[in-house]
């Protein structure tokens, strides 16, 4: 177990390291002057030169990379123009926003978390529930409705569903407010009201996929010997389905769910754009359009971090659920 964790963590660090080198190379080696992107059009050459020096862009590339990495782990001094000393998870300074990148991330991350976590609970519950019910009622109308739902959802585009939801619930019926973000602790009702359409859109599309997968898994599991054994020894149906079959059927879904949630935490780009919510994804898009390199780099790294952590979490969960897996 310890050995497994150690090996996975090392591999994860290696992967994150490779991601960081790659993104760094992409932005700093490509012949796009990062400074002119940070400065409005009327920048004079002296100011450009000064910015370049302050950012350390005249240093060798490897020094720039090392300084950046050092900033993440122990913090570093960025110079007075960039707000002086930058504490430990230092991801650089954004000239576009005029603040340290880590502060922007700290501000937008709760938005993405508030979108993803409730949506994930909704889509897992709805998807797996629907899949189980339709597997147990194979061939009935319930099954057919569930199949239709999952086939439709799996082929729809998020921005289209989002647009239709906005059109119907906000503009036509006026039931849902225009999407916005209020911190949960400030006003829970407003928090939920502002995000409910985003949750519904995400939950609809994702639960379609999970309904499909969990139905298939459950159908397969129900034909296995241990289910027949459980029935033969006289267990009530609720025990057979709820305890024996469900656990076996749900295991493969854990992998997919973990990866989906990890990827979503890195920025639900399309959801955030469609509903106009300022989370990590929308920040990344904004940074790309503004040419804000430190910001782009940070969003890529944060997103990769979530995916890598999700992968490890999935392996651990897998071992916890499936007794056959030994780490």
């Amino acid at each position: 177990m310890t050995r497994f964790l150690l090996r996975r963590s090392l591999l994860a660090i290696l992967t994150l390291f490779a991601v960081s080198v790659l993104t760094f190379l992409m932005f700093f080696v490509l012949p796009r002057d990062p400074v002119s992107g940070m400065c409005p059009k009327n920048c004079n050459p002296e100011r450009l030169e000064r910015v370049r020096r302050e950012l350390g862009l005249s240093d060798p590339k490897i020094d720039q990379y090392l300084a950046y990495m050092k900033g993440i782990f122990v913090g570093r001094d960025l110079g007075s123009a960039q707000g002086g000393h930058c504490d430990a998870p230092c991801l650089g300074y954004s000239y576009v926003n005029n603040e340290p990148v880590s502060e922007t991330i700290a501000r937008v991350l709760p938005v993405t978390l508030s979108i993803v976590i409730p949506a994930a609970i909704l889509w897992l519950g709805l998807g797996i529930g629907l899949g189980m019910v339709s597997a147990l009622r194979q061939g009935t109308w319930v099954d057919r409705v569930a199949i239709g739902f999952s086939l439709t959802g799996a082929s729809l585009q998020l921005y289209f569903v989002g647009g239709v939801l906005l059109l119907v619930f906000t503009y036509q019926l006026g039931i849902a407010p225009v999407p916005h973000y209020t911190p949960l602790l400030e006003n829970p009702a407003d928090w939920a009201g502002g995000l409910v359409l985003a949750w519904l859109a995400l939950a609809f599309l994702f639960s379609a996929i999970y309904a499909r997968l969990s139905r298939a898994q459950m159908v397969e599991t129900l034909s296995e010997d241990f289910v027949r054994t459980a029935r033969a020894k006289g267990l009530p149906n609720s025990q057979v389905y709820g305890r024996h079959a469900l656990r076996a059927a749900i295991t493969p879904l854990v992998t997919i769910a973990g990866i989906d949630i990890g990827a979503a935490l890195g920025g639900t780009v399309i959801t955030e754009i469609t509903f106009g919510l300022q989370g990590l994804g929308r920040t990344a898009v904004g940074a790309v359009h503004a040419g804000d390199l430190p910001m782009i780099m940070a969003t890529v790294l944060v997103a990769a971090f979530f995916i890598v952590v999700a992968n490890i979490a999935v392996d651990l969960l897998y071992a916890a659920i499936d007794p056959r897996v030994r780490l």
Partner: protein
Amino acid sequence: MKTRAKAIPDVGPITAAQEFVGRSPGRFAWERLRRDRTAIVTGSMLAAFLVIALAAPLIELLYGIGPHEQFQHELDSFGMPLGVAGGISGEHWFGLEPGLGRDIFIRMVYGLRTSLVIAISAATITTTLGVVAGVVAGYLGRWSDTVIGWLIDFALAMPFLIVALAVAPTVALRFYDERDEVPAEFQAIVLVTIFAVFGWAGTARLVRGQVISLREREFVDAARASGAGVGHILFRELLPNLWAPILVSYSLAVPAYITAEAALSFLGIGMLEPTPDFGRMIDRSLGYLQTDPAYVFFPGITIFAVVFAFNLFGDALRDALDPRSSRSPLP
């Protein structure tokens, strides 16, 4: 996915009467596919979409309106199309775009072309790369497996959408000035390249797993014992047993790339104006959600129909190729 005993190639009956015609697994699959109603319907839909995409210039000729023509005189002073539901008429079947006044129908015909060309080339390239990488890693094992395995993990750990978001505009700036118009072909090549860099890993992982379970089988041992080279074993012995999962993953990769391409274009980093594209159309239409709701429905429903048909066809194909792994939710 389980492997089956069809690994043994069809050598024909030895003692059976001559008139008995041996049927290959492919032949069986084809017959199962032909009997599947879903496969027939979705297959014909896909064929129709392909024909429309390929014949776009011909349709333009018959329809009499080009994708870049503007009909400003048919818009009101706010730039909204005159007439019902976004200006639907005998002349403009799906109405006009608000603002620019371009014909929606012909832009969708060309948009289908953009979408399918990119998705099919991306799927073909990623599948080829994935198969080669997966076969090499699975069969040769050792360090090549370690390296490719790590590359697979790495490619899957990259946050695809965000990296694509960061790379696509940067690459264009490498070759074109900020003020230049980036040609559509260039942008399409960039998109296909991005898909190829990230997309091969999924197929590679699938193929690698299959190869590992096949390489210890008797027929591979037999080939090796009779002195077959690595190339022969890989491509003549193993590959024919892999085409079923590869074909299925290919048929499901195409709709995935249609979705991905539209998503990138929706975010403004895929295909750019004035190239007709579903993602861009939906992006534009969201701005007119309150004033011209009909605009969002045509591209939204068309792309849904295309992806839906591909997904259903992929499922039917899986059932036909591997009836035992009938995991599709279709009864």
